[in-house]
């Protein structure tokens, strides 16, 4: 399974132009970093958009400078929401943990030279960038052409995601170094692998759906029986209604699983961080891998539970509700493993660990409200948009963002050869953590109380007036959370500018392969001699003085060390 193509993929030398070295390099590390830059740009714009949306909700009459050119209409507001969602879901939550960290770290963690198909990898990076440009531009176009451009961009992104998933899955299957058997894979690699398989299944469906809608809109086909077509038909046929529900099914088939596509690599990252900073092996590592498989499998099957209100076979909601609730089982496994790893561990509260614990907290909080939503009857009775927004932002949006930040704090030395400032990082964490709870917890209350369809009318009216002050609180909390991110930017830029200290190669004393080489990772990873792996990825209670045994430490050397 080991294969080193010496000179087969010549990496451009340092003398080569900036373009070839950075933008058109097929090196997995350059590509991974480029994905992370894309994600960083997208998350900053996405956060600004979110703040604008909140401000408009709370103070609709406030004129926002620089934005006078954008009309103040409901359509523009909807377009703003679409842009916020597209940027965050596609280019932050999908791109950063899977394509960014996955591309950079997966070959390093399995001891490979590069991804299986480096050129294809470059193609998917550029398709992702094209799609980002397309989705952003579509915001500035009139509705009809804007929607076409958005759909085209979504198709391009689906293709890019498919290529990327193909690459990650093949690399994991084929390019593991000698001794890197499946049980010895770090949980991060498992998560990227399972996620790649899931991605290959669902992005095909989004691609099919987007192509079909585009064909309806551009070529005039009638898959979704447009209103214009129905108008030409005899009136008795009109009661057939439109088949727009088909698009809804296609879309949710993709979009519900997309939640798990965003979360799966984060589960891997968190498991990795919790073990490393508790200085303990992952508790029941194989069960964790099984749970990840379970999340992937069930996540693929629960698409219908977004459609309780749209009408389906009367038994279908029950099936979907049971399936969706059963996601609690693998989630409980994961939580049990994280807690048992923490239990009696020598916990080091570095910023990366804080973000990991923050993730767990948000995952529990958001997951609990998910149980409400998984019930088809409860969802219809008492839950409104605010509740749903609060739920999925906690569990998918913010939790995943904390995982990304944790990963960034953890692997920053590997990426850039220096550390982020720890004190600034801790302040940043606590401000963000308080901020996101301040934003999304009140949203749950708003949804449950002020918009409940079960309460008597008079009570609802009374609650509605309380609602507006809660909304203002949410907006203020949003601005606070936004402002807290300035600390991160300062930390990030400062660390990169002051990159003077030579970072030791393994600052966290982690046993996985990426820490066995220099930081930042050299261009050809492990050089001419591929590493050999002798043990699992989490031997953190070691016989050696460092309390960890690197995966590639030969047994003879280990014996010498322990003697």
């Amino acid at each position, binding site marked *: 399974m080991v*294969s080193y193509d010496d000179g087969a993929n010549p990496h451009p030398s340092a003398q080569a132009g900036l373009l070839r070295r950075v933008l058109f390099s097929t090196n997995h590390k350059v590509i991974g970093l480029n994905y992370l830059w894309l994600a960083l740009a997208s998350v900053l714009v996405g956060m600004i958009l979110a703040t604008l949306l909140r401000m408009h909700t709370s103070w609709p009459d406030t004129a926002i400078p620089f934005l006078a050119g954008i009309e103040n209409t409901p359509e523009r507001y909807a377009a703003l929401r679409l842009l916020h969602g597209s940027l965050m879901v596609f280019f932050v939550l999908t791109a950063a943990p899977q394509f960014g960290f996955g591309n950079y770290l997966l070959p390093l963690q399995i001891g490979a030279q590069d991804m299986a198909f480096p050129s294809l990898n470059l193609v998917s990076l550029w398709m992702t960038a094209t799609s980002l440009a397309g989705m952003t531009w579509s915001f500035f176009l009139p509705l009809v052409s804007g929607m076409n451009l958005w759909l085209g961009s979504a198709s391009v992104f689906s293709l890019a995601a*498919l290529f990327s998933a*193909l690459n990650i899955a093949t690399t994991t299957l084929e390019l593991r170094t000698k001794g890197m*058997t499946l049980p*010895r894979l770090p949980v991060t690699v498992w998560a990227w692998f399972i996620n790649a398989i899931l991605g290959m299944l669902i992005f095909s469906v989004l691609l099919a759906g987007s192509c079909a809608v585009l*064909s309806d809109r551009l070529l*005039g086909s009638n898959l979704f029986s447009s209103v214009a077509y129905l108008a030409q038909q005899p009136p008795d046929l009109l009661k057939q209604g439109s088949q727009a529900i088909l698009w809804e099914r296609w879309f949710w088939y993709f979009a519900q699983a997309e939640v798990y596509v965003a979360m799966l690599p984060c589960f891997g990252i968190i498991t990795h961080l919790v073990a490393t900073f508790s200085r303990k092996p992952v508790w029941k590592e194989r069960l964790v891998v099984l749970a990840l498989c379970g999340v992937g499998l069930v996540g693929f099957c629960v698409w219908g539970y977004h459609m309780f209100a749209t009408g389906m076979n009367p038994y279908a909601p029950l099936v979907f509700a049971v399936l969706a609730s059963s996601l609690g089982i693998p989630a409980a496994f994961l939580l049990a493993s994280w807690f048992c790893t923490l239990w009696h561990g020598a916990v080091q509260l570095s910023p990366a660990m804080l973000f990991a614990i923050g993730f767990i907290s948000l995952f529990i909080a958001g997951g609990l409200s998910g149980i409400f939503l998984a019930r088809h009857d409860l969802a219809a009775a008492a839950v409104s948009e605010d509740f749903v927004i609060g739920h999925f932002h906690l569990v998918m949006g913010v939790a995943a963002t904390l995982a990304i930040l944790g990963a960034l704090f953890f692997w920053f030395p590997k990426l850039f050869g220096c550390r982020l400032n720890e004190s600034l990082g801790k302040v940043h964490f606590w401000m963000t953590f308080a901020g996101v709870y301040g934003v999304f917890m009140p949203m749950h209350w708003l949804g449950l109380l002020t918009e409940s369809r079960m309460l008597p009318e008079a009570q609802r009216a009374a609650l509605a007036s309380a609602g507006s002050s809660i909304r203002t609180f949410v907006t203020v909390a949003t601005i606070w959370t936004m402002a807290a991110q300035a600390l991160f930017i300062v930390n990030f830029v400062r660390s990169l500018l002051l990159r003077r200290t030579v970072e030791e190669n393994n600052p966290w004393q982690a046993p996985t392969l990426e820490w066995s080489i220099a930081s930042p990772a050299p261009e050809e990873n492990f050089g001419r001699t591929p590493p050999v792996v002798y043990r699992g990825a989490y031997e953190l209670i070691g016989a050696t003085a460092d309390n960890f045994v690197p995966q590639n430490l030969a047994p003879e050397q280990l014996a010498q060390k322990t003697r």
Partner: protein
Amino acid sequence: MPGTTAEQDLDLIVENAGGGGGGKTPPAGGDEGGGNGRRGGKGQPSPTRYFAGMGLAIVSIFVFFMALAAAFLTLKRGSTLWVPVHIPALLWFNTGVLLTSSVTLELARERLGSSDLGGFQKLWLTTTGLGVLFLIGQLVAWRILVGQGIYLAANPANSFFYIFTGTHAVHLVGGVGALIYVAKRNFDVAKVSRAVSAEVTSYYWHFMDALWLFLLALLYLGK
């Protein structure tokens, strides 16, 4: 290290699955092709990644067409606007052409296995020609339908006819490109041997073949 042997076994199983069921040692000659089997010759990267990649790509493409097929069945059941397309007779001829191309492709690979490069090139180009002929045939079938006044925009059944044939044709164009690549590539400098490229391409081609039969059956039974 507890359970080392079991781990290695598991690894072997996965490796075999990834490599499309191939063993570690390439059988001499046979349809594995020439001196360079799956595991590659000296100085060449292991080609198993290409088999694994193709396998995964096929799964992805399969899901793409399944999504379309599911939509086809949903719309057919739920709609009284459904006016089935009369499948042009030319399509049966096209199907024959595509099936023949799969046969010539296998014959070509057999020649390659017995190191008859000239015979391989001839049969391989025949395959490519048949592929192009199929594509032209599909275009003619479209012209026939348009001549009968059956357009993409007429009703969902017609839309599906064009979408199925169109998306399949787009995928097949990629297959023709791959065939040309294998025929024209200078394999002295390539990373993989011609036999491996030919085998990977053949998987794709046969899959396109089977997919076409499936789509045709769907359109036929969908009447």
